[in-house]
């Protein structure tokens, strides 16, 4: 059953008392423990915290990659905690674009094919998806690397391919988990600025990082500690 929340403003993500508990041996680990966050369309939000603070778990929950132990997560006013796996796959494919720390490109596919892959799952016709992928790779400055396999690209280039792939189905939300973690400062800064640009274009961006320099690109920063929000700061 799809549960719709009464539409009030232009909010796109709402976490309501969300918790994720794991069983590790006899112990219960509360990775995320009662988090409430509201993110509006076009927001650029950073979630920071030391490793083990629960920030990646929180991102996985928002990205419909994992299911919360309790609480509700509304994405575009739909409670995704109530959805079936195939509907979640559909939401991940259409509404969310992921960028990972380890790039996670498919090693057998060229840069162009990697960017077209999400569109294959959404049944976008061949010509249309190739044109779109070329356009996106041009946008991230990789129009000269279309037929390169990931292992022929530098770390920064790989992450730019990953950003292009995240944009393939024109999602409303970009979720980036430590996107600069495997890059040097200069390349990291380039990628961070790319997110600023996307934010300016109206994308909602959630950036998980432990690097405060990168987090400063965001409009708002949530600090997570032991699965709880410690404080919130930001320009907006």
């Amino acid at each position: 059953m799809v549960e719709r929340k009464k539409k009030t403003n232009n909010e796109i993500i709402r976490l309501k008392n969300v918790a994720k508990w794991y069983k590790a041996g006899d112990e219960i680990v509360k990775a995320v423990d009662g988090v409430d966050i509201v993110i509006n369309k076009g927001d650029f939000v950073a979630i920071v915290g030391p490793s083990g603070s629960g920030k990646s778990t929180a991102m996985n929950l928002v990205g419909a990659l994992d299911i919360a132990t309790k609480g509700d997560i509304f994405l575009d006013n739909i409670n995704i905690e109530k959805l079936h796996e195939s509907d979640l796959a559909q939401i991940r494919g259409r509404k969310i674009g992921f960028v990972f720390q380890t790039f996670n490109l498919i090693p057998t596919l060229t840069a162009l094919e990697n960017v077209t892959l999400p569109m294959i799952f959404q049944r976008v016709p061949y010509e249309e998806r190739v044109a779109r992928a070329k356009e996106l790779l041009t946008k991230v400055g990789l129009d000269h690397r279309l037929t390169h396999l990931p292992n022929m690209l530098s770390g920064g280039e790989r992450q730019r391919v990953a950003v292009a792939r995240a944009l393939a189905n024109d999602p409303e939300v970009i979720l980036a988990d430590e996107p600069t973690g495997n890059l040097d400062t200069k390349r990291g800064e380039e990628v961070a600025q790319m997110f600023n640009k996307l934010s300016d274009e109206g994308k909602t961006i959630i950036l998980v990082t432990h690097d405060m320099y990168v987090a400063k690109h965001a409009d708002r920063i949530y600090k997570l500690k032991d699965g709880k929000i410690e404080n919130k700061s930001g320009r907006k």
Partner: protein
Amino acid sequence: MLKDFFVLGLNNLKRRKLRSWLTMIGIFIGIAAVVSLMSLGQGLQDYITDEFEKLGSDKIIIQPKGMGPPGSAGGSLILTSKDLKVIENVRGVEWAVGFLIKQGQARVGDESGIGFASGLTPEDRRSLNEIQGWGIIDGRDLKKGDKFKVVVGYNHIYGDIWDKPVRIGSNIEIEGYDFKIVGVMGKIGNPIDDGLLHVDKDILKEVLGVEDEESQIMVKTSPSFDTEEVAETIERKLRKSRGEKEKQETFNVQTSEQLLNTFQNIFAVVQGVLVGIAAISLLVGGIGIMNTMYTSVVERTKEIGTMKAIGAKNSHVLMLFLIESGLLGLVGGLIGVGIGIGLAKGAEYIAGIYIGTPLLQASMSPVIIIGALIFSFVIGTLSGVLPALQASRLKPVDALRYE
């Protein structure tokens, strides 16, 4: 979408070239064995059916029971000229021919060997040659009153039976008696028929010291009679004249069609056993594919997680892995069919050159080829079901976290 998945699957197989090849070896050995055995078996059946068709469906063959190769029957299990008379008098028998085929020693100069001699009266020879489409290519056939004359099979002159040249006019010694070669039979195509020595029946009896014996009697049914009914009458009359009880006969009466069926049944069983053995190797090949796919799922766990993160449904992942394992089977099958055809053709060539028999003919029917390809794809796909299910059911978050 399916096309895209095929391209993705091929890509992945190419990425693990060595492993893909090793996996496919399991399949193509099995498919090659099945294809070559089936095509040779089919060829053999075609040849025999063809031979029987030449013989015609109106023939009946009477042989002593338990007869192995011609001429090997011994003891009381023989047919005699009395039996031939009985058969000739059965209603519906147009004519009956009694053969004498015996093993004996032949000699040319100081070379000697064991061969088969066939004894027929000249008239019977003529009718038989006509039925079988056999004929003389050099010299002349035997005629009435030909004593110590022989018509030799093709291989005596053109084959490698004798080291010394043998030709028309020269002598062959059979069981110590000199026979003059007067003619050569055309090539029949199997080493036994092409190595026969054809002599007059009465002379053969005399030379071999055989009193009264027919190795085999062949009957042609009159056109207006039913062959099977005539065969039953012959069996009844022979039983009576030989004083034998039903089911305990020492002779066999078979129409050419029954004989063909007997042969075909034997071949079907032999072929079934051979193909069954080959199928076991296919099963092993299938397990090889399953093993490869399981390894692949483990290695690509993170990749599966990524695909799910960018929108792949469980069914997409399932399909991707099934297509990949199906392709392993199909490509293995394609190579296997190629090798199988090569093996069968090779066997045909070797049999033709070194044994001189057309019995091993590779018959490449599209049914065998297409069937083998479909079968190999199905084996590949089935072998991939469990690994693919495992891959599709991975939780995205767990798969992404896998190191």
